[in-house]
């Protein structure tokens, strides 16, 4: 198989468009409207966007499940759909549904057969993967008895049976409890350390932010921003958080100090506030010390990826605003 020499792109998507038509052609949904991005060899790439943004649609085009209306998509150097590329690919579909009458070993055996693995190898890899995803105690149960989280684990195991170079996970953390989410994050780190390219989607910012080398933010069928979480966020200083220890945080002296900033919080012998980005921090701290306060902490407040995500979400849609569906912690529904 020939590798592209000019680029190390493992996934390359250019101007991808997809318009869904309902059977009677009355309704058209422009799910993708010119999506362009590249995923480099060995990186972990987070595909972040609110529900309905077009993440699953992009992934289905990449997996050869649906045809694009326009544009090109290549994986592992081959235009999709390519059987050769799929040989080196692992895929976890969104809300995976497998044959529910199979047990995990049977599911993995079927997957292994499709990759042409010999029987002994299939058994060896299946055993190792079942152990790895923590399903050893559920070996003999049919999948229909599995919880959402167990199914997700089974899905991850079947995606890794061929020891793929590229893994594509559609919402791998969805439906999992906090421990499950952490385990998926750990698995992604582990795959990355093993030199694999990881492409995964999520509508939850914190899940993407912590594991991705680079992130693409997709909204309403378009890429809004691509870059490392640090590049995307933290470019502007929003203000400076100051925390002081003071005998009476509600006394006259404290009032005078607090008046220099805003977002004032008072604790037990503690006073915190935020100074404007252009404030003279030295002068304010000297002013505070003169009034008997001790400086506990001073920290710059930067734009976070969450701030960026929220502002884009709000800006990109006036009507069915994705931002309107935002819940605390950047969880979008």
């Amino acid at each position: 198989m020939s590798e592209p020499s000019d680029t190390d792109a493992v996934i390359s998507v250019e101007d991808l468009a997809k318009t869904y038509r309902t059977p009677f052609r009355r309704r058209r949904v422009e799910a993708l409207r010119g999506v362009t991005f590249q995923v480099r060899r060995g990186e972990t790439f987070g595909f972040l966007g609110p529900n309905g943004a077009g993440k699953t649609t992009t992934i289905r085009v990449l997996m050869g499940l649906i045809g694009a209306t326009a544009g090109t998509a290549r994986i592992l150097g081959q235009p999709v759909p390519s059987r050769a590329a799929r040989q080196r690919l692992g895929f976890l579909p969104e809300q995976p549904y497998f044959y529910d009458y199979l047990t995990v070993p049977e599911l993995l055996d079927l997957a292994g057969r499709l990759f042409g693995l010999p029987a002994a190898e299939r058994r060896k890899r299946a055993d190792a993967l079942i152990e790895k995803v923590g399903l050893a105690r559920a070996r003999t149960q049919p999948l229909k008895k599995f919880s959402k989280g167990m199914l997700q684990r089974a899905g991850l195991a079947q995606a890794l049976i061929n020891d793929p170079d590229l893994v594509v996970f559609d919402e791998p953390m969805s439906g999992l409890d906090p421990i499950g989410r952490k385990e998926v994050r750990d698995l992604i780190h582990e795959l990355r350390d093993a030199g694999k390219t990881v492409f995964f989607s999520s509508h939850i910012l914190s899940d993407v932010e912590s594991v991705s080398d680079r992130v693409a933010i997709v909204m309403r069928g378009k890429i809004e921003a691509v870059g490392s979480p640090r590049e995307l966020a933290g470019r502007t200083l929003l203000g400076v958080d100051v925390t002081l220890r003071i005998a009476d945080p509600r006394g006259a002296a404290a009032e005078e100090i607090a008046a220099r900033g805003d977002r004032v919080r008072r604790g037990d012998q503690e006073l915190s506030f935020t100074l404007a980005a252009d404030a003279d921090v030295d002068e304010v701290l000297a002013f505070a010390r003169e009034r008997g306060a001790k400086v506990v902490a001073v920290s710059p407040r930067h734009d976070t990826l969450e701030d960026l995500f929220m502002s884009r979400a709000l800006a990109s849609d006036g009507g069915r605003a994705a931002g309107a569906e935002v819940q605390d912690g950047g969880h979008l529904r």
Partner: protein
Amino acid sequence: MTGVAGIWGRLWAIALNTFREAARIRVLYGVLVLVFGANAFAIVLGEMSIHEQARVARDVGLAGISLFGSLTAIFLGVALLYAEVQKRTVHAIVSKPIERWEFVLGKYLGIATTLTVLVALFTVAMVLLLLYQGVTVSGAVGKAVVLAWMEVLTVAAIAVFFSSFSTPFLSGIFALGLFVIGRVTPDMKAALGSEEASATIKGVLSVVLEVVPDLHLFAISGRTLDGQHVTVHGDFVSWGYVATASGYGLLWIAGLLALAMVIFQRRDFA
């Protein structure tokens, strides 16, 4: 893995899984019980001469194979391929290094294997009954079973073809329609030759005759072939006829599956 071994490995993987899935469908066991029951009932219809009993046993047994076999073929054919798309189990499969045509063919082979096991069990029931009655099982019965088996496999291909683009309900209706029409093609040909039929009816009939498989070729007992009455109870068709009819069935199966593969290739799995 490429090459014939690779293709065969993938077909076998899908076929085996489809057989497993079918083996879990309770209705199939109901059909088995029904056909066994019908055979047993033929014994209870006593008060007949041995000769008549044997006739009834053969008729009931063969009708069970071709009728219940075909109905089961329609049921499995319309349900199993569609369910893969509907339940999205197909997503984790066709994103692996298997071609879609291999998936369709593997699916059909699994259904065909299931039906073959069913036909074999129906046949065992019939043969046991004939032996119980002390009737020797003639070569004619063997030929009739092979013909019925080919018919069942052809009907399965019809059902799979429709389900490659349509819902189980519609596919079922289409497949059942073709099954019924395919059984009465000689009567349609006769109507075409009659004076009474209008020109419109004749036009429709001649088009239908062009596109419908002649399933009556597989249920030839009791009909007239080349001016001679053939019956499984007496003078029946030759093995040459069985081979020709089977070839005809295989051509239909190949054509229908090829169309199903082309349609499936172009579908969006969303």
